[in-house]
């Protein structure tokens, strides 16, 4: 009699049939948690240190696919970038069948796609976004561009930590010339020049702008500046200075954007401190408004003092 298999067992077999056979007995695969174009991520138990870890394994073991090399490169980039916003790598190696894998910290949390729905208000959104910008600024400083920033590549952990994931297509800035003609990234978050295979650090700035646009509006930025402004104003009604920061990031000409993530982070910090921003030339009225906001305590005290003096003079 032939064995009968339920749908659950058939689905289970399809998954476990390609589970990686890790060398040694230190790591024990428990379940897959995500699959991308380059690799599959599994939750595994590190039996030596008795903790759960995440293991990313290259999908296609076929020689010449380039995926193993990309996974190796991702592990090296992660190992090079020690930052609270980047998942640390613990170990790396090769499976018996030749595929690359690396072991990293298991982050408990959710991607920005899910998390943003619970972020209420501009301050909360900018709080998370600033952490992403700081991480990318750190990478730029270390000579690395991410090239595939998008909501699903940002994770918010259960302690509020913000992590930038998936550095599989990241490139060293000095390799930019060599990277030309390689078209990587995600439509909507990818600037025009990256679609032509010419990514630079300003391409990450474009993606950051698209990410902030998405966080504020829950929509992808339209290609035309006027359309983007219209959607932004209709959905979020941000102050003009914040809208200007987003639009400066999204400029189609790389030279019109911030030169790197650090410049964007600095302008964003100025915005949050109520100072003039590089992205927007204030009118006289706006400058007075900003000046008032900045010195409002002093102005109110002086005003109160003057009112009291006037009242005393009147009573006498």
């Amino acid at each position, binding site marked *: *009699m*032939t*064995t*009968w*298999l*339920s*749908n*659950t*067992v*058939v689905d*289970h*077999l*399809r998954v*476990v*049939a*390609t*589970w990686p*056979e890790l060398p040694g*007995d230190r790591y*024990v695969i428990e379940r897959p948690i995500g*699959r991308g174009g380059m690799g*599959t991520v599994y939750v595994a138990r590190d*039996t030596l240190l008795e903790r759960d870890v995440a293991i990313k394994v290259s*999908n*296609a*073991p*076929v*020689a010449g*696919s380039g995926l193993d090399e990309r996974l190796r490169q991702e592990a090296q980039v992660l190992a090079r970038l020690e930052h609270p916003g980047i998942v640390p790598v613990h170990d790396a190696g090769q499976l018996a*069948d*030749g*595929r690359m894998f690396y072991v990293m910290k298991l982050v408990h949390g959710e991607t920005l796609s899910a998390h943003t729905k619970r972020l209420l208000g501009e301050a909360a959104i900018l709080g998370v976004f600033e952490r992403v910008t700081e991480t990318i600024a750190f990478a730029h400083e270390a000579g690395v561009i991410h090239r595939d920033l998008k909501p699903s590549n940002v994770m918010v952990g259960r302690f509020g930590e913000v992590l930038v994931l998936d550095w599989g297509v990241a490139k060293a800035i000095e390799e930019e010339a060599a990277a030309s003609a390689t078209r990587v990234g995600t439509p909507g978050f990818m600037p025009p020049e990256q679609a032509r295979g010419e990514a630079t650090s300003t391409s990450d700035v474009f993606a950051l702008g698209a990410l902030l646009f998405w966080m504020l509006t829950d929509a992808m930025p339209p290609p035309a500046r006027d359309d983007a402004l219209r959607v932004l104003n209709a959905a979020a009604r941000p102050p003009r200075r914040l809208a200007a920061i987003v639009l400066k990031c999204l400029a189609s000409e790389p030279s019109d954007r911030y030169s790197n993530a650090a410049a964007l982070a600095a302008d964003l910090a100025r915005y949050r401190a109520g100072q003039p921003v590089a992205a927007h030339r204030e009118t006289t009225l706006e400058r007075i408004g900003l000046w008032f906001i900045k010195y409002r305590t002093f102005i109110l005290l002086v005003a109160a003092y003057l009112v009291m003096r006037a009242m005393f003079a009147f009573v006498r």
Partner: protein
Amino acid sequence: MSTFAYACRVIPFPATRRSVLERIQSDDREVRRAAFGDLAEGYWRPSYHYLRLHWRLPAASAEDMVQAFFTAAFEKQYVERYDPAKARFRTFLRTCLDRFVQNYQKAERAEKRGGGQVHLPLDFPGAERELAAIAVQDRHDLDRFFHDETVRDLFARTIDAMRRAYDAEGKLIVFEVFERHDLRPSPDLTYATLAREFDLTTAQVTNYLHAARRRFREQALVNLRALVGTDEEFRDEARELFGLEIS
């Protein structure tokens, strides 16, 4: 002997496992007969379930129809007409079955059923028992239903072959660990529990599971190769089934 590369290793591929189309077009009648044997083995059960659930044929009629269809497919050379550019082999075979049933019913030749036909030794009572377990929602998309039933049967035959092979090799314990962990999956079952149950170490459990899963994957691919029309279709099916790229 043809070969295919999987997981950076080149796995020897038996000559008898050339594509269905190649073998059925062979001049050697025995090769053709063997190809039809594989075809019938791989598709009779999904065909039976399909006839019972989609065509709503009574059990006896469905049994006769399956026998008649595969006999006619061999004698009247249906499969030789398959054009890989038009559809996958599985879809082509299902369409042939649909037409066969329509013609059969139109001609009202039911009284001739079985007369002079060669009967294949098929386990229809077993297939009938399985009907109750097929979820109702699986029955709406016909192509999907036929595909799912083909995969179910492919896996089931692969597992039966594994059990026999491990038994013959005196390594039934490997199969039993695999059976306990992967054929009766439970979220509460840990490797440590399994090790205690079978009086093994945890490392042995994971090694046995790796070995059995590798064998399952390789045997399933060999069986799959015998059910598809072309190499390209084999690559597509392997990608859909396991997410594997076959070079």
